[in-house]
């Protein structure tokens, strides 16, 4: 560790991984409910499991982004963090808010939660991904402010690199767009229009800046390639992300009451949206080929390559699959969407967090630049289990989606519930792949406890 205050990243990473485990447990519960409808009913209705699954996902990714920032910003700025104490206080506040919210979801009916938290005073609840009680949302804003102050001051007072400035831009954007979660008009169409300003402008906008800068940081450290080259790539990637992604929001404005011209805009710019993800893939592989040092942490390079590839397949290829309006007319709101959502979220944002954790944790735990060889072997096995399982989850959901569209929207116009019954074999297989994913995750957690001889030092070549 170059700076003492980087140590505050560690609890953030531990919290992220704990919530990841919770997320997957609830994913498996839902996977069961898909095929055995009364599983855990009425104790844990599907919607409750879904809220826990998606909200813990978002929160653990945010914990990961924050840990990444606390770790890399001091190194980039070449100074200690503005206030490590504030970072720790913020950590506990965020963890408490997340924990209480999940307990709230699981212990009382949602409508009771809405009542006791005074949702009617400022109704923001009950919309997908934004189910948190309004007070939790306010808590998230306070956490974000404290975090941005801490990181922002560190950058302002220290060395300003492209990596840290792009990272902070992305983080500020994340906080700003979250504010739209407080706008919930009585008109459903307006509500939906601006809901996407949180969801789409996050994952296909500002989060790409965060993704790009973390990837750039890890590549600088592990390959030793000249910063000038990496900076240039980073600028091109984020330029393409925003040039395509902002108007690309239109691929959500096809059928929700918005004007017809969005079908053109959303199709054209949506079709261009894979470009930044493709560039990211080329970027990672080019830098690794040009490497000027052999870093002993082989696992982190694997994670970085995995992010570059799976984010392109999940976001780029599976996104393109349904972004053209004539296609989306049939795929909208089917299992195709779920297939894409899984691969994209995992390939891009889950994996970039796992990448920075893989890089930072050995250092934070005083193990030098890398874990022992045996620990890395377990970690790399977990990489393959999770990645391959996710590929299969995506394929099975895509199969389910194609059949669903065929039976329900094309030929026979069968009722939804009848169709779901007919395609249940795909859901069984998805659940099987999900169990493999869980094994991978368990292996991953185990890899932190594997000891063994220290790995070799960094070798410049």
């Amino acid at each position: 560790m170059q700076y003492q205050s980087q140590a505050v990243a560690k609890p953030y990473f531990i919290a992220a991984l704990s919530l990841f485990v919770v997320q997957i447990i609830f994913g498996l519960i839902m996977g069961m409910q898909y095929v055995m409808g009364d599983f855990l009913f009425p104790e844990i209705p599907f919607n409750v499991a879904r809220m826990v699954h998606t909200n813990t996902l978002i929160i653990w990714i945010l914990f990961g982004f924050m840990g990444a920032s606390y770790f890399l910003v001091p190194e980039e700025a070449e100074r200690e963090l503005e206030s490590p104490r504030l970072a720790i206080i913020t950590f506990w506040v965020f963890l408490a808010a997340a924990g209480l919210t999940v307990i709230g979801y699981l212990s009382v009916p949602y409508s009771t939660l809405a009542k006791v938290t005074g949702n009617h005073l400022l109704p923001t609840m009950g919309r997908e991904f934004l189910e948190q009680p309004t007070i939790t949302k306010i808590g998230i804003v306070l956490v974000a402010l404290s975090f941005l102050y801490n990181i922002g001051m560190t950058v302002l007072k220290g060395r300003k690199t492209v990596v840290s400035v792009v990272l902070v831009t992305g983080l500020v954007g994340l906080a700003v767009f979250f504010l739209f979660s407080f706008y919930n008009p009585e008109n459903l169409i307006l509500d939906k229009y601006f809901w996407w300003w949180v969801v789409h402008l996050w994952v296909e906008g500002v989060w790409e800046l965060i993704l790009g800068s973390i990837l750039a940081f890890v590549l600088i450290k592990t390959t030793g390639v000249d910063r000038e080259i990496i900076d240039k790539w980073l600028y091109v990637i984020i330029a393409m992300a925003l040039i395509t992604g902002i108007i690309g929001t239109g691929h959500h404005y096809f059928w929700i009451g918005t004007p017809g011209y969005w079908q053109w805009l959303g199709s054209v710019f949506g079709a261009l949206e894979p470009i930044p993800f493709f560039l990211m893939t080329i970027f990672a592989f080019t830098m690794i080929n040009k490497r000027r040092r052999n870093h002993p942490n082989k696992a982190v390079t694997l994670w970085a390559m995995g992010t570059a590839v799976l984010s392109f397949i999940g976001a780029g290829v599976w996104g393109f699959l349904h972004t053209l309006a004539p296609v989306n007319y049939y795929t909208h709101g089917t299992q195709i969407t779920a297939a894409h959502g899984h691969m994209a979220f995992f390939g891009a944002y889950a994996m970039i967090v796992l990448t920075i954790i893989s890089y930072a944790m050995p250092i934070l735990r005083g193990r030098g630049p890398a874990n022992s060889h045996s620990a890395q072997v377990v970690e790399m096995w977990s990489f393959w289990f999770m990645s391959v399982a996710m590929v299969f989850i995506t394929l099975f959901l895509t199969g389910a989606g194609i059949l669903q569209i065929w039976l329900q929207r094309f030929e026979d116009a069968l009722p939804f519930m009848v169709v779901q019954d007919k395609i249940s074999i795909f859901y069984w297989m998805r659940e099987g792949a999900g169990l493999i994913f869980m094994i991978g995750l368990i292996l991953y957690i185990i890899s932190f406890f594997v000891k063994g001889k220290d790995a070799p030092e960094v070798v410049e070549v």
Partner: protein
Amino acid sequence: MSEFFTKNMARNIYFGGSVFFILLFLGLTFDTIRELPKRDHRENITEQVAHGKLIWEENNCIGCHSLLGEGAYFAPELGNVYKRYGNSKEAIIGFIKSRPVDGIEGRRSMPQFNLTEEELDAIAEFLKWTSEVNTENWPPNIQG
């Protein structure tokens, strides 16, 4: 990337491109908001419809259902359920009211929400209003 394409050029594309497309997006948003009243027939958003939306949200219906194609994919699309149920609010109300507390064995189940008559009416009005929004002919057929 080759020598003549410098870091400064890349940065300028990033700044210039972002600013241009943010402004364009704001312009399009402005135009959309001007056009919407013709499509969402907001004059029909009565107090009851607005209340229905709140009931919809406070019971997290979106956690199982999709509405105009957005939400969850576990249970039927409800944007057009009013039409699927033969333009009948009573049929919708009857369905929601009759959910067994312990679910239906082996079948995906919807909870019994114990809504009052007034709340049921509001949610049915909300679903009726939603089904009348101009969605460019989506969904492809009545099954949603």
